Every structure is written in structure tokens, then in C-alpha cells.
């Protein structure tokens, strides 16, 4: 696995992650996001509907939350999750947890972590964790970690324990990794913990960097737990300790403004769960993510492909028709449950080339949500994924052309 940086400007890294797997055919643009899945399926989508999207990320993410309960099946199958799921041509990353769901706290021990499948909680030792990886056959995976420091008021002692345990797990994973035939070609990422305590973050980063890992997962920075200022501060300190030539994957952060801020402090990769969360609340991403190339027209750009809608999301008009906003709705999206879209025959986002926007109207999506129809999830997932990927492409373009500040302004307006 190789990270080729073409440009580093004001802390932002632009480049390409190559040689992700043995066949060395896939490369992932940096900064970029992974393809979020449930059990190797992008939520709501079959392979046919998924492939109406172009430029999908080269790396698909699966989680042990989903896969742990299928261990026996995967072991008998012998050929790994990619083949088991009939996946398209893609690289595979395996994480411990699913950032779209919050797992109950308090189940971690010195030797185990827990994941939650359809049948309930499953406890994993390092041995079991590694056996799972062997059955899954990812191209890279995070080592087992104690990331349960996202709650408010986690004590310093608890944070220190999390760092210690995570390092211990990493060392054990590395040993087992060497001994596991099925993981010969796979890469392991170390996990940086440390909660919101600067010294612990630095310690974790420094220690993890000493190990022979292919990259770093930044954990415990989940959006709900932490304000972006603190997050930026901590990540700055962390990345200062990490080698430049290895990729940094940040878990649990997906909101566009937070993504940009984290790119500015040296993060390379993000998980792709945010479009799914937006979809589940019946909303559609609609924020402006155009990149202007001409400084003279910046700020007064003519209607480009993704001119922002006249409608501003509900922040300005809360509870206008008595419809309550979905919980956690952000200012980057529009709420298709709202009655105002009942007769709106325009596409979700003018100029968007996704299947949903090319074929359907806001009124139709609204109808599907009102009538609880499954197709709502399909269409919204397609649009939200397309829009989010477009955001990352535009972000990279902005970095390449030194238009980051302007881009930031447009996204945040």
C-alpha cells in the first residue's frame, strides 16, 4: 500500500492511495471517502442500482458489527466476504464498528471488545477478532481497539486505559497477523485513541507509529462527542506524530463542514456513512459543492451544474407547517417529508446527474415517504451518495486549484 501525495497545502494532503490489494489495480483518491455498507451491500441498493452511480470509491467498507455473526458461514465459504457478497470489483476495508449506529457502552474489558449483530452482543478476544479477519479476507483492516471514550466526562484514567489496551491489542494482532495465511496480503492499520485528552492522544499516536502498520485509524472523534475546534486541535497534535507517507483514516466524522476542517489538519480518508444517515431521515443532500476556477467570477459565479437551490434547508424556517424536522438534520440537506414538496415537480437538485434526479421529482419522493414505500430509501440513497461523492471530488479539485477557501465558503453558506 502506498500513499502518493501530489500536493500538501496548508496542512491539506492531496494524492492517491495505491496498491491497496495484491493485484494492485485499485487506487483511492485522497482526500476521499469509503463506500459504506451493511454486510457488503450499500444500504437499499442492489448492484444494478448501485452502478447507476459513477466514480464509486475504490474501497468498500464492511464492519464486524454486521459480519461477526456470520463467522461460521464465512469460514465454511473460505473465499472471503468479497466473493461471498458477489461484490463488484473493489478493495475491502474492515472496521470494528458501524459509525451510523451507536453501540451501548460499558462492555469492554481488558481482553475483549463487543460488537452488536442481529442476535445481540458478541464478545471478541483478539484471537476471535483475527479469526474473523481471516474469514473475511479484507485488503486492510483496523486492529482491535478500545474506542469507548466518546461519552461525555470520560475520566482521564479511563482514557489512559483505552490507549494502553489498544496498543496491547495492536501488538497481539500484529503477531497473529504474521501467522495467518489468509491475511498474508492484507494490511493492518493501527488505531489512535486518547479521547479528548491531548497528552493521551499524542502518546497513542507516538506509540502506534512505532509499530509496523500500513496506516492509521483515528478513533474516538465521533461527531456527537466533540466540537470541531477541539477535534481539529487534537488531530493536529496526532498527525504531527504520524509519518507523512502513511494514510490517516478518520472514523465517525462525515458532515461536510467537519470533513473540510479535518482535511485541513491532515486527515486523508473518511467513512461514507453520512449519506446513509441523511437518507434514513428522509432527507436529501443539497448543499452547494461547486468549485469555481476563475477567481474573477468567484462569489458571483453563473449557474453552474450545481447551483444551490433557492430553498434553503429548514434552519431558517423551523416548523413552518407544523412538520417537525427530523432529529439530527443538518443544514446541508432538505427534508422531503415536508409538505412543501408535495407538488414540487423539480428534481431534488437541479443539474445533478444521479438516477434519482434524472428520473424523478421531489413530489414523487415526498409521496413515497408519506406512503412508507421502500423505493424512497433506494432513490434517496442514490442521490445522497452521488452528491457526497461529488463533494469529495470538488474538494480535491479545489485543493488542486488552490480554491479551498472559496469552496469552503460555498459549502458552509
Amino acid at each position, binding site marked *: 500500500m502506498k500513499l502518493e501525495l501530489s500536493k500538501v497545502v496548508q496542512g491539506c494532503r492531496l494524492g492517491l492511495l495505491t496498491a491497496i490489494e495484491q493485484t494492485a489495480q485499485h487506487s483511492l483518491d485522497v482526500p476521499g471517502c469509503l463506500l459504506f455498507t451493511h454486510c457488503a*451491500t450499500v444500504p437499499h441498493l442492489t448492484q444494478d442500482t448501485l452502478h447507476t452511480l459513477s466514480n464509486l470509491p475504490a474501497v468498500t467498507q464492511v464492519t464486524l458489527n454486521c459480519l461477526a455473526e456470520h463467522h461460521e458461514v464465512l469460514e465454511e465459504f473460505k473465499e472471503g466476504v468479497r466473493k461471498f457478497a458477489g461484490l463488484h470489483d473493489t478493495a475491502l476495508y474492515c472496521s470494528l464498528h458501524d459509525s451510523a449506529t451507536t453501540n451501548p457502552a460499558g462492555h469492554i474489558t481488558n481482553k475483549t471488545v463487543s460488537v452488536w449483530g442481529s442476535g445481540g452482543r458478541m464478545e471478541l478476544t483478539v484471537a476471535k477478532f483475527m479469526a474473523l479477519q481471516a474469514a473475511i479476507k479484507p485488503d486492510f483492516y483496523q486492529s482491535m481497539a478500545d474506542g469507548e471514550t466518546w461519552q461525555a466526562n470520560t475520566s482521564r484514567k479511563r482514557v489512559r486505559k483505552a490507549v494502553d489496551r489498544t496498543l496491547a491489542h495492536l501488538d497481539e494482532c500484529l503477531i497473529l497477523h504474521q501467522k495467518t495465511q489468509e491475511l498474508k496480503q492484507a494490511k493492518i492499520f493501527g488505531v489512535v485513541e486518547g479521547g479528548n485528552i491531548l497528552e493521551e492522544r499524542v502518546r497513542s499516536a507516538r506509540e502506534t507509529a512505532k509499530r509496523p502498520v500500513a496506516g492509521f485509524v483515528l478513533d474516538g472523534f465521533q461527531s456527537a462527542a466533540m466540537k470541531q475546534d477541539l477535534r481539529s486541535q487534537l488531530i493536529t497534535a496526532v498527525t504531527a506524530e504520524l509519518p507523512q507517507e502513511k494514510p490517516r483514516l478518520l472514523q465517525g466524522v462525515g458532515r461536510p463542514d467537519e470533513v473540510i476542517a479535518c482535511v485541513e489538519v491532515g486527515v486523508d480518508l473518511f467513512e461514507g456513512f453520512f449519506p446513509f444517515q441523511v437518507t434514513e431521515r428522509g432527507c436529501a443532500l443539497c448543499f452547494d459543492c461547486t468549485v469555481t476556477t476563475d477567481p474573477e467570477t468567484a462569489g458571483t459565479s453563473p449557474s453552474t451544474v450545481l447551483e444551490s437551490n433557492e430553498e434553503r434547508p429548514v434552519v431558517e424556517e423551523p416548523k413552518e407547517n407544523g412538520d417537525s424536522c427530523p432529529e439530527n438534520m443538518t443544514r446541508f440537506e432538505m427534508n422531503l417529508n415536508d409538505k412543501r414538496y408535495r407538488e414540487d415537480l423539480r428534481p431534488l437538485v437541479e443539474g445533478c446527474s444521479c438516477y434519482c434526479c434524472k428520473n424523478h421529482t421531489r413530489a414523487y419522493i415526498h409521496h*413515497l415517504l408519506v406512503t412508507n414505500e421502500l423505493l424512497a430509501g433506494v432513490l434517496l440513497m442514490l442521490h445522497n451518495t452521488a452528491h457526497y461523492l461529488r463533494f469529495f471530488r470538488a474538494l480535491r479539485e479545489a485543493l488542486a486549484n488552490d480554491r479551498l477557501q472559496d469552496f469552503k465558503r460555498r459549502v458552509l453558506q
Partner: protein
Amino acid sequence: MAAVESGTCEGPAGMSAVKRLSHAAPLALRILAECPVSKARACVLTLPHGPVNTPVFMPVGTQGTMKGITVEQLEELGCQICLGNTYHLGMRPGPELIEKASGLHGFMNWRRNLLTDSGGFQMVSLVELSEVTEEGVMFRSPYDGKEILLTPEQSITIQNSLGSDIMMQLDDVVSSTVTGPRVEEAMHRSVRWLDRCIAANKNPDRQNLFAIIQGGLNADLRKACLDEMTKRDVPGFAVGGLSGGEEKDDFWKMVTLSTDHLPRGKPRYLMGVGYAVDLVVCVALGCDMFDCVFPTRTARFGSALVPWGSLQIKQKQYAKDFQPIDPDCQCATCKRHSRAYLHALFKSDTAAMHHITIHNISYQVLTKLISRIFSCFSLYRCFYCSCCLYFLL
């Protein structure tokens, strides 16, 4: 569009006073082949939104959507006509909006054919305390509690707004398990309502109104209904009031009685049928068109249809079954996914339902059964014999 063939109205012998429309209906039926032993036939039914090969199974997309399947996927599955539901769509989002969105075709962006039912069945089956009078069906809306009266005229008005290629008359529906004078009353009323529907149709040049033969399980009443309704020059006929829990022997008798007395040159639509076995038999009895929610509904419960029955994919026995649902099936699901993966996926994501839905629609619409019928005809072999072989194998 020209409707040369549909003009030939072959009613029962001795028929007189044929009530004709002032212009030809937008439907043409071309019979490609007929089985010499059974009453089966293979046809091409041409409608405003394209041709439909019959026998045809029409999947049901109740609320203007085929349960998690995109219209592109539906087209790729070979579906040439599907159903929308007048009652549900009339409630939400309502005919005015749909008309504004260029009809149901425009609203859901389906460019092939649509058939809408009248709304009558739902009103009687779904809604408590509905009351039928000569005027129409009175019921209480489940959404706002208001009293609503659905008349034949209103049903047609809604269907005109939906713009479906085939509209069903509002009929007085009684369950096939009901006996006595109510059945006769319903039959006669359905004839009167047919005339009211015909008169109310604003778009006879682009929307086909089908009559629905009633009469329950009473041969005399059925025959009387057939005699009357075939006097009206409608472009097609449906056989209604069956597949609602009656004995199979009674069911088949009524189907074959109906097709005996329906004109050869017009399509016969058997409503609410259904299961693969029933499809085979009713094709042999002379029916051309079928609809049923079963394949799509059962898919969402993880039930995959196969020639030898069905697989309950959520059952433990499939957890390590690495073959596809049907190794011979060419649908996208079977080409790419195993029973084991679908079993696992059912625990994590709704997409599992979509995979099975696609397979089940493929099974019913492009069912080996129906394609066998066509290959049978192309080899000039008897459909009936082919059918027997099919069941014996």
C-alpha cells in the same frame, strides 16, 4: 392508433343490439397461435404505451411504485404492463397532483403500460363499514375519517386523471363465498355501473375501459352477466369475483364458463390470479392477463419462488447454502448472489427484499412457464402437451 382487430366483436351467437362506441378503442389484439387441445392462445396486445405479449402476468405497484424496484429495473425484467391502485393513489397523492405530473406514467416515470383497478375492491375489503348503494360505495376515509362516496363516475374520473392504458369499471364486488340474492343484485348492478362508466370515460381514444364479469359461483348468473356485458362494445373483459377463497373446482368452472362466452378477439383478464399452478391452468382455460400481489408481497418476507415451490430464505437451512435461488434463473439476483448471502443480508439491510422481489418478478413475468408457452408455439407443439410434460418433469 389503429385498432383494426379489436373492431371484430365476436360475441355469443344470436347476439343483436351491440352497443358500439363512436370511435375505435386504443387497443389491438393479434392472436399469434392457439392451442388445438386447450383454449390457450399466445397474442400480442398493443396498447398506447407499447406491445404486451400475452399470456402476461402483471405485477402490482399499488402506490405508484413497485416495492423497492426502480422503473429501470422493472423494464429490464421484461415487464410491459403493471398495475396501479386507484383507491390508494386517489387518497394519496390524489388525482389532481397526478394529472399535474402528466398522469401516473409521468408521476412514477413508467413509460410502458399501466392498468388501474376501479378502487371498488379495496373499499370493500380494506375499509370497515363501507356501504353499497345504487349510487356507489360509501365509506369512511382511513386518513381523515371523512365520509366518501365512490361512484362509477368518480372512479372513472380518477382513472382518467391517472391516464392508465387500461381502466377497470367500478363493479359491485361480493366475495365468492357469499350466496343468495346479494350475488344477483351485485351482478345486475355491475352491468348498470358498466354503462355509467362507459358514459363517464372522457378519454376513450387513449384509455381502454374493461368490463368485469360478475355472478359469483352461480353459472346462471355468470351466463346472464356475460350475455349482457358482451353486448357493450368494450375493448376487453375481466373475470371478477373469483380467487377469493372459493373451492378450486368451483373456481375453474367459472373461469372456463366465462372464457367460453367471451369474444375471441378481445383480451380476457382474470383478476387476482396468482400462483404459478393457477396461471398454467387458467392459460389453458383461455385467459390472457393476470395480476396478483403474491409474488412481490411474499418476496418481502424472504420467500423466493421457484418452479418446485418456494424457498424461505430466512430459514436457517439456507445459511450455508452457497448456490443461487435457482441455478437456471437468469435474473440479476441469481446471477450474482447465493442463498447464503441473501440469508445473511436479511439480518442487515432492506436490499435483501429487493433482491428477492427482482427474482420473483422475473419468475412470474418472464417465468419459464410463459416462455415455454411461446417456445412451444414456435415449434408448433401443443401447449397442453408441453404443460403436461412440465408437470411430469
